[in-house]
């Protein structure tokens, strides 16, 4: 650990202390059942230290671990219309949103940030499966467009971590329209000649897979991630047969030519540094503990202050 990590980590940890309640000190691996101490699990990026199972990781934990020294600047996302269809199933859509915001402490299902990885400035968009299944609605569409525009403006590559059950049904047709909208965002990057790397995490399904998640220059997946258009249950109901073990998992997609690589989370950062630097024609990254970024350099991002979204009622 370099001094920056030591300096930033405690501060970020204190920001998140609200969520570190004592009963969460131990977490059971849902694959092998091992009880894992939360700090150890966090240091291992939520990968089981016993069996290597990749559990969900929040976008904030992910970007904090990804960027040099945990330093990044969050990019603001234009606010879409709230509840454009006045959607109501058994609950009202705004009520579902409030519950998701309360449970995650986040405003919506995607975090956009910019910073450096191995001294390589990049823009990152990170989808949050814990927020209404990561579902793609207007906000997620706006987030991807904002990320692409920022990347084009700053001439930085874009790395997108996908995780979603699909489109957000509560936004009806407008969620479906995020497929073409996010495709336009990908085209902005391509036309600017900037690398667009997709990291597909568990699960990435439906309209998300069938748009921006499958249009990357490079597709990397985390081990055993479910990646599909139609979910296994829907297929089993349609074809009335049991699907083979490992069907639609990352390794299966790799075998079928849909991915470039399957990479464990612990090696992802190094791999993204290697790939982006080569695509940008930059010299190899200097490995190991880096001195802190020079704050006078223009490319260095400002540390981010976590503030509650304005429309979030802390008492809700």
């Amino acid at each position: 650990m370099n001094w920056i990590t030591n300096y930033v980590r405690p501060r970020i940890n204190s920001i998140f202390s609200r969520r570190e309640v004592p009963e969460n000190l131990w977490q059971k691996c849902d694959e092998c059942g091992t009880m894992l101490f939360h700090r150890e699990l966090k240091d291992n990026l939520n990968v089981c230290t016993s069996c290597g199972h990749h559990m969900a990781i929040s976008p904030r934990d992910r970007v904090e671990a990804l960027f040099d020294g945990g330093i990044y600047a969050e990019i603001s996302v234009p606010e879409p219309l709230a509840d454009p269809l006045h959607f109501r199933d058994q609950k009202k859509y705004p009520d579902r949103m409030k519950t998701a915001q309360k449970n995650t402490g986040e405003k919506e299902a995607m975090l956009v940030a910019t910073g450096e990885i191995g001294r390589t400035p990049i823009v990152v968009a990170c989808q949050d499966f814990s927020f209404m299944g990561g579902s793609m609605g207007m906000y997620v569409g706006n987030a991807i467009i904002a990320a692409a525009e920022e990347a084009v403006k700053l001439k930085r590559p874009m790395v997108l971590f996908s995780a979603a059950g699909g489109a957000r049904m509560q936004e009806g047709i407008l969620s479906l329209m995020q497929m073409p909208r996010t495709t336009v965002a990908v085209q902005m990057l391509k036309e600017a000649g900037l690398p667009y790397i997709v990291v597909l995490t568990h699960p990435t399904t439906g309209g998300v897979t069938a748009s921006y998640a499958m249009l990357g220059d490079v597709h990397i997946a985390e081990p055993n991630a479910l990646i599909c258009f139609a979910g296994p249950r829907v297929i089993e109901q349609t074809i009335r047969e049991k699907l083979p073990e490992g069907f639609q998992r990352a390794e299966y997609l790799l075998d079928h030519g849909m991915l470039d690589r399957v990479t464990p989370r612990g090696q992802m950062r190094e791999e993204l540094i290697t790939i982006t630097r080569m695509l940008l024609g930059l010299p190899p990254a200097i490995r190991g503990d880096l001195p802190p970024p020079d704050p006078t350099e223009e490319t260095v991002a400002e540390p981010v202050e976590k503030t509650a979204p304005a429309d979030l009622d802390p008492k809700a």
Partner: protein
Amino acid sequence: MTQYLDFEKPLAEIEGKAEELRAMARANEEMDVSDEATTLDAKASKMLEDLYKDLTPWRKCQVARHPERPHCRDYIDALFSEYTPLAGDRNFADDHAVMGGLARLNDTPVMVIGHEKGDDTKSRIERNFGMARPEGYRKAIRLMQMADKFGLPVVTLVDTPGAYPGKGAEERGQSEAIARATETCLQIKVPLISVIIGEGGSGGAVAFATANRIAMLEHSIYSVISPEGCASILWKDAEKMREAAEALRLTAQDLKKLNVVDDVIPEPRGGAHRDRDTTIQAVGKTIERMLKSFDNQSGEELVHNRRRKFLDMGSRGLAA
């Protein structure tokens, strides 16, 4: 002989009675039933008018899926000349759920592409009920790129329950194929217009309908998920499809308000399947008019405007 939908049952009874009377009159020359039959006809006509005046979203789904509704093939046969089907994705197979090829619309050569559901058991199976596999989207990509190369406008006719959820389809990259088709729609420097003639089912529809102008038949639907699928996820009960159809706002009328479609093409009284020719001609007129509107746009403008259209989408919601 019309196949009646469940909500048309009272209508079926009246029309059946009128038919019965006429059959009796034919058998017995001394019998004159014309007055009674005419009264029943008038009653039926009024009832049909009332039934279709204000269809609920779920009823619209039923009409959109009516087996006798004109399908892609009917439009191609009636509206285009010299239709020359072009087959295959040059990679794996030819997907019969997707029709496509060169054709002339009033002498102007165009590329026409659409989903075809089939109209009897045999052709429905052959067409896979209009549910395309990756090969279908890749054929469409190939045809769109050919149209782009030779400067031909592209007309797509959308009528699909959705992309096929099958093992092989997933193996061969259903997601990637749909994503690339949408991307191709956004890239081509020729006019791309789309008409949703029946069901616009989710990503399988978007792959064809990311167009400069989008029209919808009055009783067609366009949705992120089928009402049954939505009901089983959000209501945990597939039988709540009426509620789901309501909530999803999948009708042509609501989509026009949301700025997702540009034009709504009126259907004849009692739906497209009751007067197929009139429907097909109305769609033809709309296609002609839409294509003319691009006469003065350059390829770059077409691409720019198409992207802008989708970027701007969603800025308008529905009134409370």
